[in-house]
């Protein structure tokens, strides 16, 4: 209960600080809050925007939750997201399901490179996953400028994907998929033997080892699952929203997933609420840029505040 309270307080402080920061630009905080609210949840159009932004955040957030629960610092969501989208594009002509499956496999494989480096040379995931992000970004850059460049050869982008996600009203079906994934993640983590062992490994690898858990295999599986979910996020974003790839395709969803997961206190179901909050923040920040001429980068500022407040609360709790 207190954990939920801490999360709510962190989210609230982010919004309040964001509004106060508006004073620097000569806007009244109340006015800014009103714009944020109307731009994110104020209309059907705004709500849809929030929902669309929340889907990739929910999935990259889940990806982080799974890895962190196993004690692995997978901060490579960005790269896994990109290779997921790339694989989804290539497999699109075999249908939506095949395309999404390819996205998951690619994400898992990309994450597993970090695992392999851990097992062979004891390279820390914090470093390898972040480096793999840059590798993926350049891989995408090369693809959209080279072999996968659109036939018109006008912009550095690919042609439209062969298939698209079915729509529910004006929203793509990825929403349902993402929520189903978080329920599935919850079920795996808290209702299966695999989840029990994964969490034990994350909390105390020594005790896990002595209890007969094969810690390395456990970490490898957790990392693969984590990568698969991030890859799926990329696939859904491609088939549901952008329909084509371009250089700035990921635009930070992988990194934002860390904030989403931390705000959700690493709980898969809470991640739904957390992703919705950040989705609203990003969408509302877009409205701020349009109407108040404040850079939408304030959304990133909001994420940072959330993390800092969470760390602060954690310290207070630890010292009590």
């Amino acid at each position: 209960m207190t954990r939920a309270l801490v999360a709510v307080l962190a989210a609230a402080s982010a919004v309040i600080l964001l509004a106060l920061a508006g004073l620097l630009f000569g806007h009244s905080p109340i006015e800014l809050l009103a714009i944020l609210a109307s731009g994110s949840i104020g209309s059907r159009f705004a709500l849809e925007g929030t929902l669309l932004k929340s889907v990739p955040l929910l999935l990259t957030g889940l990806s982080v939750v799974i890895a962190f629960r196993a004690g692995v610092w997978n901060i490579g969501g960005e790269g896994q997201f990109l290779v997921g989208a790339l694989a989804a594009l290539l497999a699109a002509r075999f249908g939506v399901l095949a395309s999404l499956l390819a996205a998951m496999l690619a994400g898992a494989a990309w994450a597993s490179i970090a695992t392999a480096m851990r097992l062979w040379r004891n390279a820390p995931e914090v470093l390898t996953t972040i480096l793999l992000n840059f590798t993926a970004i350049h891989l995408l850059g090369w693809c959209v400028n080279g072999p996968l460049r659109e036939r018109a050869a006008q912009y550095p982008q690919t042609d439209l994907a062969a298939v698209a996600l079915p729509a529910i009203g004006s929203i793509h079906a990825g929403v349902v998929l993402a929520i189903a994934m978080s329920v599935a993640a919850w079920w795996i983590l808290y209702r299966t033997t695999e989840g029990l062992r994964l969490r034990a490994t994350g909390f105390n690898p020594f005790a896990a080892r002595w209890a007969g858990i094969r810690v390395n295999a456990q970490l490898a599986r957790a990392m693969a699952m984590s990568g698969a979910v991030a890859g799926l996020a990329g696939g859904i974003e491609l088939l549901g929203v952008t329909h084509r790839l371009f250089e700035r395709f990921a635009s930070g969803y992988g990194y934002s997933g860390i904030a989403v997961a931390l705000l959700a206190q690493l709980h898969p179901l809470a991640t739904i609420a957390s992703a919705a909050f950040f989705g609203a923040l990003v969408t509302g920040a877009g409205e701020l840029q349009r109407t108040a001429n404040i850079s939408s980068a304030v959304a990133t500022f909001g994420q940072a505040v959330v993390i800092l407040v969470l760390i602060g609360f954690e310290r207070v709790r630890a010292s009590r």
Partner: protein
Amino acid sequence: MLHLAHVTKHFGTTRAVDDVSLTIRAGEIVAIAGENGAGKTTLMRIAAGELAADAGTLQREGRAELVHQHFLLVNELTIAENIAFARHAGFRFTTRRMLEREAEETIAASGIDLRGVSRRVGELSVGERSKLELIKAISRKPSTLILDEPTSVLTPTETEDLFRVMRRLASENTAVVFISHKLPEVLAIAERIIVMRGGRVVLESAANVSAETLANAMVASAGQPGNRETGQPRNGEILAILGVTGNGQRELATNLLDEQPTAAHIPEDRTRDGIVAQMTIAENLALKANRWRPCEAAQHAQRTIARYSIRASGPQQLAGSLSGGNQQKVILARELERRPDTIVASEPTRGLDIEATRFVHEQLRSAANAGAKILLITSDLDEAFALADAVQVIYRGKLSERMTPEEARTRVASLMAGVA
């Protein structure tokens, strides 16, 4: 001087400390005795300022240092670096050589024997780590020094050394608080003895009290402490490996467990290797199961809690919030319920009270009776002689020949010291 008045502390619905008042004066050695879970550690954490009480007041002159039963050391750093951490909080320039010289001076000043300051803490034995913790605490020149079960990993000689250090500190006007459930030690060192049970002070007396009175005050169900049956060879055997901590016991256990992955294991460092503190009792009990279903696991845990009389609010309590003895019961239940044919138990009663110790011994004994092979690695002579069918001594990684307990009694001291 340390003065606590009407201090109360709850953890959830459990009343860990219940309206306790006590005064500890400069220069005196006070023992706080009681079973695991009696509230000794919680009370002293409040006294040291680590925990806030729910009610009551705390007055303290000078610094109070609490040396924990569980180590608060950075395993990746050396002894010298850990000592430097404890002594200097601020920023400064230094060299490895300087840190090591300072550490050696600090150790010398503390009067405790610990060599090789450039060794990493992760390589140290449990006995050495406890010495390092003590050195750290003394180096901060506390006016009150609180030691939580300091002797549980020490040999009799090391315990004597510790007592000498305690007496010297007291003569230098430090108040020394000694948390323990080992009555002979309590009687040997303390000037005043406070017995706690169920979060309350049930007895406060000068040191001329009898062990029996103390034991009765500690254990509500009057048991017979110290009256342990000597092991008889039966179908299964308990082989005790006796030795001073840090003579290769850990390697011995690890090798054996690597050869026999199905063996049950009761690890020496239970908070590190035995329990997942952030998970519930039910989950900890299920870690070795082939298949886990939350509902079944909870029911199973409920039965285990009753059968092992684990003091807990229920299967969903976090294992980390249990007292040491109850954590050990959880480990024991998990390891023994699958009727393993081999059991490796390392210091299985380290830090446990009389009742929990007796319980662990009974469990090991009955497992042996059921035919299990048991390797009991211990530095506790009483434990070895109470349980073992055969004894071997380990010294610097080498095992002595097998002896019967009778043979061992006369030879064990010199073998453990490496002079035989």
